[in-house]
């Protein structure tokens, strides 16, 4: 009666050093049958997948965060340690540990494998990237290695179609017995040296590694920063130029859907809710999907190729001026697309204070959602004039807005980091081997990010847009009323109430009203301004923006426009960012501090900008 039902899946966990190719192996085993969530009570990503072996065994596989040691120095490593030891609350201990090691870097990876062996749990060693090791002239005696470890050893190639064949065969075989741990206090490095001496033979001497030749340029004190600048420049060019046709397509598509729905439904509250609330609101955010995907594709390629840690190395001197380390560079770079994935990426920062400061300044990186607002205002108010022959005045202002965000971030970080003085800022980071990114891993990584983004659109943003639609639609204006309908609504009244606060910045009540829907997503402010100035019906957003561009200079002074631009550099009003900060830090205090300091900065800067602009 108490027999384990034959349908119960075997639970295995992939565990190994960062850069051992574990995730490629996980993708190879599970394909797209993956589920990404968080570990209960931690902000560490939990990746789980399922697959069936050739002989029909169901396997449930957990991709544990990469770790160098079971003596954890980050939340990620702590999760790996606890799950391997079977002490993580709410997670059953895996039936089998699959230790993944890079065959070309056994000197480093085998020590962790030995540490796993000390746990005395059933385990298998997957020697990954065995093909690369053979190419480098290393011949590894697998049976002998297995005898030394007291655990089966299989060779795998995470990036090849049949690369996990031996591992699958091992999973079909009866489970291996648990290895006997070595006596405690054994010098694991000494054991690694002995095992390597006995099991690895060199078939030919190593020629100068590709890493040495590439690093001579990539890490060069002069050429390194030049290469980095070119890469970043091309990346931003791609994000903002290549994405445009796709974005226009999505925009037109959402407009068309809105129109069709509009035709189907009778005029009334329901139609307004669907067309102006949900479709227009979600549409304006989905439009950013191409930009975000192109940015993420770049980041993934840089990450998979091994370049990103090198960029962090080059930027560490600058980051240390702000009291941070090069590790903060990656999350901050992501924040240029959207602060939400950027803040999620701070999980890789081990020092808790560095991580907190990075989260605090991530919203200061100009996210792509601010771009429509910038584009509209710059197009309407900044003359298209050549500066010094080659530069364009509008482009310079846009660059200045980005630079203002970055400089403010460095300044804020410096002030925030002051509290943690006396504490050493650690860098200590592996510069992994260069690798050609694998298309399948890129695709899976990209789909995962798209899914996270769309889920956010589907939940937080749509519900907020509906709320804001309701605020701007009710109560309806009385019959025979003149002026825009929004003036009569709750949002209009709130806008008028806000006016005394924002009047010193040169904002009129229309801007105040537009700031409210901007809470949900900053770019919605453009649509909201269009609504307030009562131009156009639903859909055709591009026409709206063009018409607004012509109309605004008649209603606003240049000082007001500059003040609004300055406000948007800090723009504290993004609910999704605040929500993700709450989730990542589990603290309302941090949320309040972030919102508070951003609001204060936005207010003071807009005020100064307005007053200064009035003088000219």
């Amino acid at each position, binding site marked *: 009666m108490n027999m384990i039902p034959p349908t119960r899946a075997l639970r295995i966990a992939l565990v190994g050093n960062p850069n051992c190719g574990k995730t490629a192996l996980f993708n190879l085993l599970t394909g797209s049958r993956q589920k990404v969530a968080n570990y209960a009570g931690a902000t560490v990503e939990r990746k789980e997948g399922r697959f069936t072996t050739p002989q029909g065994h169901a396997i449930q596989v957990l991709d544990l965060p990469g770790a160098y040691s079971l003596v954890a*120095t980050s939340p990620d490593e702590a999760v790996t340690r606890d799950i391997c030891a079977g002490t993580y609350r709410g997670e059953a201990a895996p039936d089998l540990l699959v230790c993944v090691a890079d065959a070309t870097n056994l000197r480093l990876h085998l020590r962790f494998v030995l540490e796993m062996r000390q746990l005395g749990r059933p385990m298998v060693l997957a020697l990954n990237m065995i093909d690369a090791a053979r190419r480098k002239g290393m011949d590894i005696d697998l049976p002998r290695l297995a005898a030394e470890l007291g655990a089966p050893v299989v060779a795998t190639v995470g990036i090849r179609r049949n690369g996990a064949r031996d591992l699958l065969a091992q999973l079909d075989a009866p489970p291996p017995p648990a290895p006997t741990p070595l006596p405690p206090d054994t010098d694991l490095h000494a054991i690694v040296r002995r095992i390597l001496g006995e099991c690895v033979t060199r078939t030919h001497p190593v020629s100068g590694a590709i890493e040495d030749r590439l690093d001579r340029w990539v890490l060069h004190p002069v050429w390194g920063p030049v290469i980095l600048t070119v890469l970043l420049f091309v990346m931003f060019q791609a994000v903002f130029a290549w994405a445009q046709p796709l974005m226009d397509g999505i925009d037109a598509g959402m407009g068309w859907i809105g129109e069709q729905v509009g035709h189907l439904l009778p005029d009334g509250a329901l139609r307004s809710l669907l067309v102006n609330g949900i479709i227009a609101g979600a549409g304006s955010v989905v439009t950013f999907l191409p930009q975000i995907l192109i940015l993420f594709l770049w980041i993934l390629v840089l990450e998979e190729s091994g370049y990103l840690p090198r960029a962090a190395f080059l930027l*560490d001197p600058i980051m240390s001026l702000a009291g941070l380390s090069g590790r903060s560079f990656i999350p901050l770079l992501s924040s240029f697309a959207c602060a939400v994935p950027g803040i999620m990426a701070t999980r890789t920062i081990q020092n808790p204070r560095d991580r907190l400061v990075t989260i605090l300044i991530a919203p200061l990186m100009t996210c792509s959602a601010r771009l429509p607002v910038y584009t509209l205002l710059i197009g309407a108010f900044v003359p298209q004039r050549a500066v010094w022959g080659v530069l364009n005045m509008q482009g310079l202002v846009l660059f200045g807005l980005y630079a203002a965000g970055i400089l403010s971030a460095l300044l804020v970080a410096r002030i925030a980091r002051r509290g943690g003085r006396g504490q050493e800022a650690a860098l200590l980071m592996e510069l992994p081997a260069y690798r050609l990114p694998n298309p399948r891993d890129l695709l899976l990584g990209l789909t995962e990010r798209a899914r996270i983004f769309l889920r956010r659109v589907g939940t937080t943003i749509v519900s907020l847009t509906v709320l804001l639609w309701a605020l701007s639609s009710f109560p309806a204006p009385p019959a025979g009323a003149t002026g825009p309908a929004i003036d009569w609504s709750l949002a209009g009244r709130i806008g008028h109430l806000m006016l005394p606060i924002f009047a010193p910045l040169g904002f009129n009540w229309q801007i105040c009203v537009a700031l409210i829907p901007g809470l949900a997503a900053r770019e919605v402010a453009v649509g909201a301004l269009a609504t307030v100035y009562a131009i156009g019906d639903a859909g055709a957003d591009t026409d709206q923006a063009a018409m607004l561009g012509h109309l605004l200079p008649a209603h606003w002074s240049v000082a007001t426009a500059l003040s609004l631009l300055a406000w948007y550099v800090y723009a504290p009003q993004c609910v999704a960012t605040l929500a993700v900060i709450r989730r990542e830090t589990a603290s309302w205090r941090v949320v309040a501090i972030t919102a508070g300091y951003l609001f204060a900065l936005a207010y003071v800067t807009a005020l100064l900008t307005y007053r200064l602009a009035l003088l000219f």
Partner: protein
Amino acid sequence: MRLSELPRGVEAIIERVEDARHPDPVARRLRELGFVPDEAVRIVATAPMGGDPIAVRIGFTRFALRREEAARVIVRTDLSRPDPQARPHP
């Protein structure tokens, strides 16, 4: 001498890793990453703007670390025999 003082491109042998404080998680992690006696180490790059951090190669692995971290690693450049100065005083 300390790894932080090693000239770029010069091969050295690790003598030991010192604790800068008690306990010292950085020193511990360095040892786990393979900074152990008798391993060969070499600085392969120094960062722009002042040369901190440095990139070192140890075995087949490369690490970026700040000079403050590298100062914990005591090395000798005489590859044949132990450096008497680097021995701890009795």
